[in-house]
């Protein structure tokens, strides 16, 4: 048996690779999903780009760059959550989840595989959108400056945390909870202050927004595009909040799995 099987870290890496391979095989065989990676973000980019041009032509004091930057960075968060959750839902919809859960793949390895696969897919989406934003509107993502990569990292990690929460909800409450996968990120959108400054939010909403990592990123992005520097302290707060989100999401996932195993709900994903 040991001649056939790897063990230790090598086995762990191979198991994580299995999730990534599965994700990319599925993507290759599913052209609508491939189109989906670029179509909706592009549609949103075109829509907001035109809106911002119209506002500018009518002397409304708003920077095209701020809206397009917001659209692009929002996609990092939105797609990171979506790619992680839909990677899991692919196994649910194809009635493959029991095969995954009776394999030696651990929960954390499974999640790690989904997260790593999402990095590539989000990078492709943002790459396509950046080229289009530059071609159509002359907006270069690099204008955001040295804060760009940390901004994207914070949003990606927040997206991952929301993705894991959506997975945990489906495991805990059953397949009917999959609607959460589609709406969860939009629950956070008003508090993330994607398209407007935090100052326009009423007091209580502003207090909630302070606890949303994305709000610090979008506020920071607007500050940079308005000519200010990167607020590293704001980024540090966002990164700390991300850690709290990820820890909470993983704790909820492990609780949901324990609950589902105890109540026999995991078995129902096979039927």
């Amino acid at each position: 048996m040991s001649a056939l099987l790897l063990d230790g870290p090598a086995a762990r890496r191979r198991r994580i690779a299995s999730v990534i391979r599965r994700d990319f095989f599925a993507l290759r065989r599913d052209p609508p999903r491939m189109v989906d990676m670029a179509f909706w973000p592009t549609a949103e980019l075109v829509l907001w780009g035109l809106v911002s041009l119209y506002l500018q032509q009518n002397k409304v004091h708003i920077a095209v760059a701020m809206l397009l930057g917001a659209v692009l960075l929002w996609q990092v968060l939105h797609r990171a959550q979506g790619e992680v959750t839909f990677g899991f839902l692919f196994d649910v919809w194809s009635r493959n989840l029991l095969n995954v859960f009776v394999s030696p793949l651990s929960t954390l390895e499974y999640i790690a595989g989904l997260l790593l696969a999402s990095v590539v897919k989000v990078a492709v989406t943002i790459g396509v959108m950046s080229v289009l934003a530059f071609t159509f509107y002359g907006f270069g993502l690099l204008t955001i400056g040295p804060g760009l990569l940390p901004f994207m990292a914070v949003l990606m990690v927040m997206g991952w945390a929301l993705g894991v929460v959506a997975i945990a909800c489906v495991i805990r409450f059953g397949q009917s909870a999959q609607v959460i996968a589609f709406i969860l990120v939009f629950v956070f959108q008003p508090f993330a202050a994607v398209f407007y400054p935090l100052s326009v939010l009423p007091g209580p909403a502003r207090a909630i927004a302070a606890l949303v990592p994305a709000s610090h990123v979008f506020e920071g992005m607007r500050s940079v595009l308005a000519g200010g520097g990167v607020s590293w302290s704001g980024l540090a707060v966002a990164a700390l909040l991300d850690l709290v989100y990820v820890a909470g999401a993983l704790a909820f996932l492990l609780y949901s799995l324990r609950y589902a195993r105890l109540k026999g709900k995991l078995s129902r994903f096979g039927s």
Partner: protein
Amino acid sequence: MTVLEAVSLTKRFGPVTAVDGVSFSVGEGEIVGLLGPNGAGKTTTLHMVLGLTTPDTGTVRMFGRDLAKHRTWALSRVNFAASYVSLPWVLRVDEILDVFAHMYGLRHPHRRVVEVTEMLELGELRDQRYGQLSSGQQTRVQLAKALLNEPGLLVLDEPTANLDPDVGDRIRELLLREAHRTGRAMLITSHNMPEVERMCSRIHFVSGGQIVATGSAVELAGAYGVDDLEAVFLRVARG
């Protein structure tokens, strides 16, 4: 050597006791059947053995180790197929086997995929999508997946349900041939009595969540004073 040891497994879902103090073992090279009417607790028992469902009381030991404490180690040495579980429909056969060969941490995944593809005569199907295959072909792919890691214990929940007699017979032949070649243990549930008579050296009849009779097909028929396993099944199912 004892491959699987289930001790006093009990599982309640609300007021219903699905499994009530079930104990059994499976030795190396042994093929054990769990029989019983629908709702008897067979699948719940299998799912506790595989770690999908946590027992309220009782323990599962695989290859001498506690499943709860050595899950990854134990599940590397076990595999599973069931008529109610599917595989990703959009993936090709060779892609599915590649994914699971990696998932089980095989040292040489590509070599092993080629071996099981030949063993299950899947060569001509390897570049076809799973969703395009017939039921019999899908079952063969599921079994190929289940044999990838040369499991010491193969757990099969109604493996030949939905198959025509010819395909069902070929699958049984293959499983028996593989079991004899490798000394593999198997734990099987089935409603196909001839299948169980042919494959299982020991049978546990489950009813109301409890094991109510144990023995070979001949021993059970003798104990109940009937001709075959089907008659035993009817006696047990009808109380």
